[in-house]
């Protein structure tokens, strides 16, 4: 378990984190969402010991994260950075060794990773000679090269083309399957929805929603029932006194119930109005959940 417990941080009078707590389970991919300046990067930096929290702690396997445990964390900072003039393989090897690998294992791991990313021909090239996309790959490799037990990645998908996104997603899934907890932040909510087992939404320095995507949908206050009766308008629904119609178009009606238990009453009314082709609770997208959580 990777636990963030009651983190607080302020810079001067500016409160950046206000009691941030959440947990990433082993083998869980946790998407960390929030608007710019919500405090995602600060939270991650606290876990890596780069920023000192005013209160609270980060624990891994029940112990407060210290420098020893930190070496088992793979970290990709939001502001990318490696040595521009150092050959890529040598560079990865260096980081692997700083994280505790012996020379042989570090060499092998660096080579394998780069070859797996299609950079087998570029091992001896200095980083600055690579294209930006390839530099981004090397940056990710730097986070993965020591085979970390925990992954904390700040916006790992930003700047990647669709192929790059798929390759990274596959790589992360493989590590998740080994039981590695993966925490990553992203603005691309569709991606988070597709990849993550759990999501945390940070707004104004607080976790405003946290859990699996399904749990978040359950908790959605504004659950909508979607009914499609081709060739009708929404008048049948408007006549019901226990619903509120949100929208109606082309036979499709979206409505909310005062009492969610009366969904079958809606179905009966709909069937009376015509031939029902679709009926069900609408699945709100993460974007909608996010908007509502942030607005609340």
């Amino acid at each position, binding site marked *: 378990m990777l636990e963030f417990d009651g983190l607080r941080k302020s810079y001067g009078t500016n409160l950046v984190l206000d009691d941030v707590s959440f947990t990433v389970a082993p083998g869980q991919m946790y998407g960390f969402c929030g608007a710019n300046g919500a405090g995602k990067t600060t939270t991650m930096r606290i876990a*890596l*010991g*780069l*920023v*000192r929290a005013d209160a609270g702690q980060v624990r*891994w*396997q029940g*112990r407060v994260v*210290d*420098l*020893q*445990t*930190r*070496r*088992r*964390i793979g*970290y990709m*900072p939001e*502001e*990318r*950075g*490696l*040595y*521009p*003039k*150092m050959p890529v393989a040598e560079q990865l090897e*260096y*980081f692997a*060794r*700083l*994280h*505790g*690998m*012996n020379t*042989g*294992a570090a060499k092998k791991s660096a080579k394998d990773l780069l070859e797996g990313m299609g950079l087998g021909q570029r091992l001896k090239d200095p980083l600055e000679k690579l294209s930006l996309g390839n530099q981004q790959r090397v940056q990710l490799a*730097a986070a993965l090269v020591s*085979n970390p*037990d925990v992954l904390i990645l700040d916006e790992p998908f930003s700047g990647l083309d669709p192929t790059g996104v798929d390759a990274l997603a596959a790589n992360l899934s493989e*590590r998740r399957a*080994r*039981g*590695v907890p993966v925490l990553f932040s992203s603005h691309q909510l569709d991606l988070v929805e597709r990849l993550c087992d759990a999501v945390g939404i940070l707004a104004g320095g607080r976790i405003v929603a946290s859990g699996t995507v399904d749990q978040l949908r359950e908790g959605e206050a504004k659950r909508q029932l979607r009914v499609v009766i081709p060739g009708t308008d929404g008048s049948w629904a408007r006549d019901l006194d226990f619903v509120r119609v949100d929208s109606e178009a082309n036979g499709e009606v979206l409505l909310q119930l005062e009492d969610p238990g009366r969904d079958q009453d809606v179905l009966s009314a709909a069937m009376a109005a015509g031939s029902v082709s679709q009926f069900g609770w609408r699945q709100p997208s993460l974007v909608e959940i996010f908007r509502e959580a942030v607005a609340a």
Partner: protein
Amino acid sequence: MSEKSAYDRTADVPMTSSRIVRLIARREVSTRLKDKGFIASSVFIILLIMGSVVFQVLIQSGADEVAVGVTGEPQGLSAAIEDQASALGLTAEVTEYDDEAAVREALEAEEIDAAVIDAESVLVNESLDERLRVAIEGAVTGLTIADRLAEEGLDPGILQPVSLDVTSLKPVDEESDEKAIVAFIAVLLLYTLLIFFGQFIAQGVVEEKASRVIEVLLAAVKPWQLLAGKIIGLGVLALGQLIIICAAGLGAAIAFDVITVPGAAIVTVVQVLGWFVLGFVLVAALFAVCGALVSRQEDLQSVLLPMTLLLVAALFLAITAGQNPDGTLAKVTSFIPPLSTMVMPVRVATGAVQWWEIALSVALMLVAIVVTVRVGGRIYSGALLGKGGRVKIQDALASERVS
């Protein structure tokens, strides 16, 4: 270390501080050795120092030795010129020629520096060395007076100078001049290398900040380990360079007889090496901390200026101390780090320094190193993640991270 791991950790190495510092130092060394700019400037410095030693050798070897040709009367002029010259600190090699034509030829062929003809005129190629002129005049005058005395029936022996019995209260150290020259060259060398490597350290620190690799590094190592690794890595390179220069310089100096007492010079060199190690650690730490305060190479020179001026001041004080090693200024500054690293070796070489003075100076230096690495390490650590313009020292101390 975590109890459970998703991967096989049997091949992992325990990460002690010394291991981390070694890894960082090794990277510094190997990166620099591959850096063409570094190699080029190193070679330039070595050549510069060698060149100045060779220049010194040429000047010294030519200056105090003269060759004189003599022809005609009177008898004994050759010996008289040699005597007079040696009293003036010149080594004159006098050759007698059969006639004026022969001596002229030798002069034109630059075999001799001056030709004395019949004790009446002197021929030279360009100009006559002032001391040599005095020597020749003295020799000729002495012989002439002796001749006239003999003509008057007097014993020329009355011209023998009275020999004074001289007792010195402070015996002059025969070796001190040589020691002073060696110490001066060594201090110049120290200054050059400290500035050179200080710049490299500061640039390396800024490079890590500018490229943002610092955040990846600090997630795995402590700032002081990074600082120590850098200082040790570049220190090894600097010491290597210094040893090459010293060995070659000493070798050349001994081979060309500039130094007649190699033992004393070697002691001075070893002493300077010791001071270099102390001074390097302190100066490197100061430069690194300054480098951490800025994020771009363009801003580096302005923060380094005070440090550079400090070193210039140290060089100036060291030169002053060479002229007046027991003066108050030299005495005081030989205890103040980092000035002491350049002033003390000069004082030791040229003046009378008590053993406790050296011990005190070294102790103060060590204290300064510990304080700088501690406080500097905190500033370094607090400033490393700061970005944009210049980080203020107090902000850096306030935002120092946990570990």
